[in-house]
């Protein structure tokens, strides 16, 4: 299990369990999302607190999640560590994803 998904009202909390979230982990993560998110909740908080390192394949899986949620969906990312933040900045996806320090902050963002 790469991601644990729990519901808090209308917000799904997706906690990535891997400390290294990379091309080896991304397929299982996408499978977890397909089971727990696709066609279901439209507001998602992604908790990356445990993730010390992420590569572009895992980042691609996050882009896929964003597309899965669609225009009416809302996604915020909590707890990005320095290497993860650096990846968002290098790829300029820090302008696409909403990054928050903590899960409560991210939850407030998706609830608008």
């Amino acid at each position: 299990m790469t991601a644990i998904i729990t519901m808090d009202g209308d917000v799904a909390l997706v906690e990535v369990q891997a400390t290294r979230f990379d091309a080896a982990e991304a397929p299982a993560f996408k499978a977890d999302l397909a089971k727990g998110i696709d066609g279901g909740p439209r507001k998602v908080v992604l908790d990356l607190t445990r993730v010390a390192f992420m590569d572009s394949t895992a980042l691609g899986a996050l882009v896929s999640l964003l597309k899965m949620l669609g225009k009416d969906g809302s996604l915020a990312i909590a707890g990005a560590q320095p290497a993860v933040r650096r990846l968002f900045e290098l790829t300029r996806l820090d302008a696409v994803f909403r990054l928050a320090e903590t899960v409560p902050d991210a939850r407030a963002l998706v609830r608008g």
Partner: protein
Amino acid sequence: MQERSCVAEEGAVRLYPARLEEVGQLSEHVRALCEAAAVPPEAMIDIELALAEAANNIIIHGYRGRSDGMIGVDVQIVPGSVSLELRDQGEAVPEGLFSRCRTISADAESGRGVGIIQSCIDQIDYRSEGGTNRLRLTKRLSR
């Protein structure tokens, strides 16, 4: 536990099976050498990001699913720079790949690897000779 997947050493070069699940071990090896040499954390992040993308590319595009491929890594740390050389016997990359500029759409789910390497690394040297590809990534360190 660490270094369990390093199956051989040839001089200073460590060899790892070319599989996605082994990239973390390769990365641990490089990280340990950099930490021992007190490489600054910001530079370490860039080196690790570039290394992961380069290794993934070798596994996915170079070896194309072959299960018997290996990746060799040689790390040279001197005052002012860290240099990694990755060696493989897979397919060579298209000419000019590492010097080309590319634009990736924000909603693309792949294709960012080479751009990340270019952003993280100061000098990229690539050559393919006698069936061996050598990718040298040099990161300058500001002290």
